[in-house]
């Protein structure tokens, strides 16, 4: 199934590595992109592609937190809760999201749009509190920003408040 749709991309991934198994995580990502999470069928197919046993694929897939073996919402909100963010209000941030969406960590909204997770350090400690939603970082969050981000995601599926190429402090502010 994966193969039919993505043969070219799979070949390109395989070509990078001298040993096939190295392509495992990239292929698991591909499966996740296609279906939103990694199904058992996808893992079996990847095992066959890489000449691995299904348990070899499973043991890798279960080690990494970014590989979802269960369905998550269309927008996966991951709030950093490590100390650096906690010092400047990650708890408050989780509180705002809970109020606005009615979900706490490890919960998905009934419409299937949002899943909230409290996660460990995402390497954005200087711009805390922060969160990642799908592929994008949102930093130096305030209640107003969170409002706008959630509203924009609902209506347009994206939000311009996401961080671009990172630099902090910004050169302009350094003067």
């Amino acid at each position, binding site marked *: 199934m994966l193969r039919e749709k993505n043969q070219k991309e799979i070949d390109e991934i395989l070509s*990078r*590595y*001298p*040993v096939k*198994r*190295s*392509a*495992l*995580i*990239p292929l*698991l*990502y591909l499966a996740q992109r296609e279906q939103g999470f990694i199904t058992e069928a996808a893992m079996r197919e990847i095992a066959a592609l*890489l000449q691995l046993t299904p348990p070899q694929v499973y*043991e*890798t897939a279960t*080690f*990494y*937190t*970014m*590989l979802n073996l269960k369905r998550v919402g269309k927008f996966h909100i991951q709030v950093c*809760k*490590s*100390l*650096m963010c*906690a*010092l*400047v209000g990650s708890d408050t941030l989780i509180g705002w999201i809970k109020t606005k969406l009615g979900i706490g960590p490890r919960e998905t909204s009934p419409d299937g749009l949002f899943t909230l997770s409290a996660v*460990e*350090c*995402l*390497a*954005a*400690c*200087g*711009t*805390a509190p922060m969160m*990642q939603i799908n*592929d*994008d*970082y949102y930093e130096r969050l305030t209640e107003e920003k969170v409002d706008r981000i959630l509203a924009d995601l609902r209506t347009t599926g994206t939000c311009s408040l996401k*961080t*671009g*190429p*990172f*630099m*902090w*402090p910004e*050169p*302009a502010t*350094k003067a």
Partner: protein
Amino acid sequence: MSTHEPILLKNMLRLDYSGSLADYEQVGGYQAIRKVFGKMAPKDVTQSVMKSGLRGRGGAGFPTGVKWGFLPKDYQGPRYLCCNADESEPGTFKDRQLMERDPHQMLEGMLLACYAIGAEVAFIYIRGEFVLGAAILERAIAEARRAGYIGKNILGSGTTVDIWVHRGAGAYICGEETALLESLEGKRGLPRVKPPFPATHGLYNKPTVVNNVETLANLPHIINRGPEWFASIGSPPKSTGTRIFCVSGHVKQPGNYEVPMGVTFRELIYEHAGGMRTNKPLKAFIPGGASAPFLTPDHLDVKMDFESVAAAGSMLGSGGVTVLEEGTSMVWAALSLMEFFYHESCGKCSPCREGSSWLVQTMRRIVAKQGRSQDLETLTDLCKNIAGRTVCAFGDAEVAPIMSTLDHWRSEYTSLIHEAEAANLLHPERLTPRH
């Protein structure tokens, strides 16, 4: 404030610098490989890097040239370079900036390292969450490939180097170099038993060098301006060059600041990062990422070089400086970091796997005011039985927050426990069984 010239952040500090190949070439980019490829013997490149005194910027601070020198000289098969862009140490966010704002600087550094060690293939192992960073690197690699800087017979020198981006998938431990290699091989990220070291048995069991992003980004400058120039910066002879320190926590202006090694924490925190965010004084700080023991206001005049911070009882580590203001509970802070380590323990070694669980449970009940006086002994005993008894340095790291807060702020633990014990006298029914 000491004045100094930024090296690694210099380009990106210009408002009009986009990090594109054209921009990088305009500021002298890819001149270092022109100088080296086909013109300098690889061992002389290694020699230059040794002479510069450059030490690894990922955390351990191992001399880079020496690390390269460990590769077997007469080995005929493939060798690999892995760029460690996992940046997973809490408090650290410098590599992200180096990759996203000036990717070619790091790529040129990788090319130089590949030339020195004789690697034709290099991988950038970037943490999975940096989706944007990975895309920027892919784009930069494609640009450099089109311009003939990456690929076969680079600039007609006969040197071949290919560079690939490989995304991790969310595991702190994959910043440990052998766990990184396991992960890159498509396995669970479990650190390997050493020896053998990656220099002889690394990726696919082949000679391999793993270097941090910031380490590699320094290389073009060392080649262009000479090892003597580099060795004169900072705190020679043992801590040369600049470091990008990442300041977070209760300061006015958190962020990345590049300063010569050897400035004091006081200067970094109060001058560069603007001092404390309110009128509450500084209570504690972490000098080098979550794995480094907490230090106190008494240590503010310690110099930020490898030796001085070690002598103060902590480590310069990854350069992540986190500042805590008066009023922050140190027991809570230690628990917060312990939750991190408990979540991230890979599970390979029992002292760490079981110990982190036991530590976090003990800490949780102390913070919840359900502790008992013997808990402090339990904590100390556990810490002593984890540190130094694991395959990788994670074991030493995870006990650092608890050990250092017990050392400097023990009374905060005892007052929480006294409160709990006083409450238990009034309400014996609240006593819960425990292991």
